[in-house]
């Protein structure tokens, strides 16, 4: 065995990691080897020096601080889980609860299909000569909108012509604002209309008719808009309308969600004000909510939010 190998044995021996057999072998070698005895002494000294100057013991204060910090982080972790699951529930609820909203959607779909079947629908239809059910009369209806006319065959040599176009019929509906069909349609539009202006109008119309009660379906739709709509103007109007509804766990979650995640400071302020108002009305916030607000107070770049959050928190201290 070489000196180098014995040096390794010395290290392992100092750490008590040597088998009895190797320990005996090392001792026997050390008795006859000056170089390895010196190596043993040097290793002992350096180990002692390192141990004596570690000054890194964990004291109780540090442990307490670490535990406190961890508790906060875990609470936040749990809240994020809850927020995510609430958000998921809202979405699932929206898509899975069968009542009015879904019925509304289905009825609109049926109307669409009916219109489509009568007036060629919104789908592109290739019209061919002698196609049954399609007459000049149907093309000549005043309320049929024709768009996107495209010619497939416009070669005059054979006297035939082939083209496609989109045809859609405008639906006109009149009824009471409390008519469930009207409300279903407006709710559906605020969630699904491609045009943000139309989504905004749907919300504003509901808002302007004070007689409309914000029932569970409308409220859930508003919460979904507040949390998911891409357009900040639409989100803001939805948030304002949501303020008209009664404060409960779901609205609180929506306000907290906006306060923590919305990119628009105006919306975060609106959400914070709603929480403050709810608090004044006796809807106190629990520890987890306060922790989220503390977090926001510390990290938000908007001074108003920082100030208002701290004022709200002071009421709880």
């Amino acid at each position, binding site marked *: 065995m070489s000196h180098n190998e014995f040096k390794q044995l010395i290290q392992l021996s100092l*750490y008590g990691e040597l088998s009895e057999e190797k320990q005996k072998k090392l001792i026997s070698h050390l008795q006859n080897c000056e170089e390895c005895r010196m190596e043993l002494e040097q290793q002992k000294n350096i180990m002692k020096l390192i141990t004596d100057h570690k000054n890194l013991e964990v004291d109780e204060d540090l442990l307490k601080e670490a535990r406190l910090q961890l508790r906060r982080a875990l609470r936040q972790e749990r809240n994020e889980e809850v927020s995510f699951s609430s958000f998921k529930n809202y979405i699932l609820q929206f898509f899975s609860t069968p009542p009015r909203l879904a019925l509304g959607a289905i009825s609109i779909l049926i109307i669409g299909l009916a219109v489509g079947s009568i007036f060629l629908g919104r789908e592109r239809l290739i019209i061919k000569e002698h196609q049954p059910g399609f007459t000049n009369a149907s093309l000549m209806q005043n309320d049929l909108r024709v768009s996107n006319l495209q010619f497939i065959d416009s070669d005059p040599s054979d006297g035939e012509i082939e083209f496609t176009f989109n045809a859609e019929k405008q639906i006109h509906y009149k009824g009471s604002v409390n008519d469930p069909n009207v409300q279903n349609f407006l709710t559906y539009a605020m969630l699904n209309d491609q045009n943000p202006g139309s989504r905004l109008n749907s919300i504003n119309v509901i808002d302007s008719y004070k007689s409309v009660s914000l029932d569970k379906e409308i409220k859930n739709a508003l919460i979904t808009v507040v949390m998911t709509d891409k357009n900040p103007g639409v989100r803001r109007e939805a948030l304002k309308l949501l303020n008209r509804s009664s404060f409960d766990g779901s609205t609180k979650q929506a306000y907290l969600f906006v306060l923590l995640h919305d990119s628009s400071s105006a919306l975060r302020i609106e959400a914070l004000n709603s929480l403050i108002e709810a608090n004044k009305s006796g809807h106190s916030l629990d520890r987890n909510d306060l922790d989220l607000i503390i977090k926001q107070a510390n990290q938000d770049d908007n001074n108003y939010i920082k100030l208002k959050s701290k004022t709200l928190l002071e009421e709880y201290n």
Partner: protein
Amino acid sequence: MEIAEKEIILKAQKGDQVAFEQLIYNYDKAVLSIAMKFVRDSDDAKDVYQEVFIRVYRSLKNFEFRSEFSTWIFRITTNVCLTYKSRKKEQFMVPLQEEFEEDNFQIRKFELISDEKSPEEECLSKDLQNFIGNAVVSLSERQRITFVLKHYEGYKIREIAEMLNCKEGTVKKYLFDAIKNLRKKLKPLEVYQT
């Protein structure tokens, strides 16, 4: 694994927060101790500590009792240590080398003979700690974690191999290399090794 601990783990896996805290408190001091010796800074150590237990919290449901729970936690600890990037990287970059050149040391050696430490000696002792700390921190991550676990925490090589998920021979190699490098870096302190 003790039956009691297994029951606590099962409860914690079902979302029992009290059980989770109980579980943490069995190991957290050891985790903080490893972190402290690895990063050598109390704020960084708290960060490592927090990251370890957040990871434990997130992945506890996946713990399938294939290893000791302690091994699992310390494996997470070593992983966090190995990938941790200090927020105060500059802290260990203060050049202390000059202060520990042999010529400067001769005088100080005699100063240390006295039993009571003067303010200067206290200061020197702090400097020594920093110097040794710098030497430990300058090791590669794997050498450092092996050295911390073995030298400061006293774990068996077999246990360290489990934590680092490698062979015992590999642990020995890290340890030998760590000590070899430390001896090189601490050479200016040989004057103290009497």
